[in-house]
């Protein structure tokens, strides 16, 4: 069983970058699929607006990182590690984290690595970063999570773009951070981009539209077995929360805030109901930002709890989705620094390869 307890590292702050451009689902996508009804979609998924633009994930994370380091008073030279969690990296290679080291002006004595995870990615990234830091030689690290511009044309009413940054600091004696992590690779095709990897290389056929779940999609865009993912979420998340509580002997009802991956309102309401959680302790941002993949937990905290994290707070968070993969984490914060949301416009000036 994948339980993990990490000591001597705490979450110091969070920030988030989103495209400035707002898409309203009531005004778009009227013919998204054959049974698509915009009003019913908005009512049932809880997604009215999304931020979407021609902006890669890293261009959302970098300004958010600058803002957060500024708000925390961190010097560039102090950052010992950068982890970049995304399914939409800048290039197939090199790792985007390496490029970010240079863009942020961090020391060359910096640990930098990409992690390819989606909706569970913030919890997985956190577990990896904290494990790296608990020895005490890496004292400050930035965990970047999110998905911006896709590798190929994307068109759908559920997902929004966001890039987030979580600042982690070695702090001997702080309260421990506890995890439960799980995987079901048997459902690897529940959410999948079939072509473009090494198994199915890109060919002209990859761009041909085919029908999947009532929608016309090509093989370089993400396709989802919605019902399977829904059933997975409502059954696995409450179980994971309970497993973590039992393993560590804690009462999950004690948290100040429960922040779940923002999958869709129908799924999240069901999870909240099954765990008997009071709505006022379960913040949500999907109405304004949609499902933002691995960015959704920190984005919810930054945008919904900006003025509510003074003093000591206890959090329970769970990320779940593509893999299938899930992770639940319990942590405490003291005067968590939350930067103001960074709104980003497309950068048309920088020349990239």
């Amino acid at each position, binding site marked *: 069983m994948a339980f993990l307890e990490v000591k001597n590292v705490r979450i110091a702050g969070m920030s988030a970058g989103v495209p400035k451009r707002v898409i309203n689902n009531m005004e778009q996508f009227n013919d998204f699929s054959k049974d698509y009804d915009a009003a019913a979609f908005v009512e049932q998924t809880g997604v009215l607006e999304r931020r979407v633009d021609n902006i890669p994930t890293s261009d959302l994370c970098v300004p958010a990182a600058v803002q957060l380091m500024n708000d925390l008073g961190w010097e560039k030279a102090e950052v010992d590690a950068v982890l970049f969690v995304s399914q939409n990296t800048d290039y197939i290679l090199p790792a985007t984290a390496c490029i970010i080291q240079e863009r942020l002006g961090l020391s060359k004595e910096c640990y930098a690595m990409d992690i390819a995870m989606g909706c569970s990615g913030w919890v997985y990234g956190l577990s990896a970063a904290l494990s790296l830091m608990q020895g005490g030689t890496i004292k400050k690290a930035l965990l970047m999570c999110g998905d911006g511009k896709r590798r190929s044309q994307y068109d759908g009413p559920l997902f929004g773009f966001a890039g987030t940054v979580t600042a982690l600091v070695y702090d001997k004696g702080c309260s421990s951070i506890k995890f439960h992590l799980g995987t079901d690779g048997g459902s690897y095709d529940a959410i999948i981009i079939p072509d473009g990897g090494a198994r199915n290389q890109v060919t002209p056929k990859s761009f041909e539209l085919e029908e999947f779940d009532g929608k016309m999609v090509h093989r370089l865009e993400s396709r989802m077995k919605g019902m399977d993912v*829904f059933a997975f979420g409502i059954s696995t998340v409450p179980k994971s929360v309970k497993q973590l509580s039992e393993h560590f002997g804690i009462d999950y009802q004690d948290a100040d805030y429960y922040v779940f991956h923002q999958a869709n309102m129908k799924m999240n309401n069901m999870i909240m109901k099954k765990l008997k959680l009071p709505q006022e302790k379960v913040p949500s941002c999907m109405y304004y930002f949609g499902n933002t993949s691995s960015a959704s937990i920190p984005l919810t905290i930054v945008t919904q709890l900006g003025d509510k994290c003074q003093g000591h707070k206890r959090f329970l968070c769970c990320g779940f989705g593509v893999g299938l993969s899930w992770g639940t984490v319990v942590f405490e914060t003291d005067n968590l620094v939350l930067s103001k949301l960074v709104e980003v416009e497309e950068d048309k000036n920088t020349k990239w390869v």
Partner: protein
Amino acid sequence: MELKDFIANFAEQFDETDVNEFKPETVFHDLEEYSSLVALSIIAMINEEYDVTLKGDDMSAAVTIEDLFNIVKSKM
């Protein structure tokens, strides 16, 4: 688990369809109001009421409401 109660629970997931349209032999995929979002409500109801987690394939395999009832029953 009674078929009559299952049909009542099933019918509750619809807003506009007349309650008399829900019978054991109803081909639910053909109901005008049935959509992928309604299917999610049905999966949620079955998870909550019967502690059974259905997949998309189960929903497709069932033609009538009674078929779905039998699938749920077989997984209990």
